[in-house]
């Protein structure tokens, strides 16, 4: 993957998913008692997935901007 010369697209996308992931997993952590689909705390776990995805993109963008 190479970066576009102006604004590496991984910055905005990574930031957005990190923000949404943190919001959703945080909410899931404090509302673990709510009704859950098939007994899974979907907010917590999928929130973490989105958070990790966002952080991964940010990490990639940072590495590309350094080299």
């Amino acid at each position, binding site marked *: 993957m190479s970066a576009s010369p102006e*604004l590496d697209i991984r910055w*905005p996308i990574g930031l957005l998913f990190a923000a949404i992931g943190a919001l*959703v997993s945080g909410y899931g952590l404090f509302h673990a008692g709510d009704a859950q689909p*098939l007994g899974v705390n*979907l907010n917590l776990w999928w929130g973490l997935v*989105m958070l990790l*995805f966002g952080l991964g993109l940010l990490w990639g963008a940072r590495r590309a901007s350094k080299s």
Partner: protein
Amino acid sequence: MHLHWIDYAIIGVYCAFVLGVGLVLKKFMRTSLDFFLSGRRIPAWVTGLAFLSANLGALEVMGMAASGAKYGMLTSHFYWVGAIPAMIFVGLFMMPYYYGSRARSVPEYLRLRFDEKTRAFNALTFAVMTVLASGINMYAMAIVFQLMLGWSIHATILLSAAVVLIYTYLGGLTSSIYNEVLQFFLIVLGILPIAILSVIEVGGWQGLAARLPHGYTNTWSTLGHAADNPMGIEWFGVVMGLGFVLSFGYWCTDFLVVQRAMAARDMAAAQKTPLIAAFPKMLIPFLVIVPGMIAWAILPHNDFLPGGQGEYNYNLALPLMLKHYYPAGMLGVGITALLASFMSGMAGNVTAFNTVWTYDIYQSYIRRDAPDRHYLAMGRFATITGVLLSIGAAYVALQFRNIMDYLQLIFSFVNAPLLATFLLGMFWKRATPNGAFCGLVGGTSAAALHYFATKAGVVEYSSDMAANFYGAIYAWTACFALTILISFFTRPRPDSHLKGLVYSLTEKPSYRRLPWLNRPATLAWLVAIFTILFNWIFR
């Protein structure tokens, strides 16, 4: 279904980001080429995802889930017979002429290859079609948000139009492409949990097959006769109508998608754009069609009747699944994904519209030799006009039942004959300007004629879908035959004018310098093999 503060917070974060990206990109928009074609410097994986996602609007996502609920696995033909082979074809065989000609739009290619009137005809029909498509997109979404959340139709249309207007006005095609890529990830991450949870709940593929009528989980084995399957069509209509004419017509000639590849940084990136897009594209059926089928299998069918009576509204399949599975929090993500796909679908149409308007209509016929700055300003002005016209079109879309059928109908007017023009134009150097023009006009008229004949009951089909497929076949055939016939009686352009535009007069790009795995042809083979496998597994 109602939203909590957390859901609104997520929608708010998304809107803030979209506008922020537009603001940041604004300072890079110096020339009209920056605005309309992103200065031709976007890497292939970004244009690839944008290529996919310009088409993965809310209409597509909800319409495909709706078709899944209504027609079952037959809907996958839109992907595994339609889109994927077309994407391979446009990447391998058509991109060398599109990108190689340095045309800035599809109509401009037509002017280079044929003549001014062919370009004018295509530019005008495309401008009308893209505004209509954008309007339908907006209207459909407003209806869904009203049914789902009780939002006012007018407020949804106006607010989303405002967001799209601001970010495309500021950042042009780059803004649109960035938001399309963002939207792609939102759709995938926002809907994937539904796909996973619903497959678990229904008990896998076997469990699903057991709960649906016979044949709903097959793609090929019920296509022997039109009466045997829910779509009311047989294999010939699917392969020729949907696969060849409609899908090739859309993916190979529609400027909305081709524009993404034209923004790529070099020929290899342009060719790889549709091929990279094809990998996620072939998995989309699992993300939207299968959950649509499961919605019909596990939810009470009364849920599909919003007023409690009348015809089933299959477009509710995906929203109902959101409601069924998502708690506050993830619901916000799901709603944001739908909103995002809706807005990026609209932005895609608006950016294609402003390019065609500015380069192919304004610069060609109204004001030819203005400084570049003037066209950049015109592009921004066309963006505003495009959004306003789409809002108007949104209110026209009211009368039609299934939005996907309607979209297919528009394509059969415009893209089906255009495909014949491009195939002849790119691969037969004898095709003449007058032949192409008459073929286009004749093919489009044939589509219109067929449409009115169907409406009047002169020709009858067992479903709207079948009628559209055959309308497209007739339009394509009329254009193909007319173009050839008239070409024999009119003068072709000299070879010297056709270099880089026609197969036999263009040097083939060579990719020996690229690593084996990075060549367009390798990607194309991989895509083809996977697609054949999917067709076989789900036959």
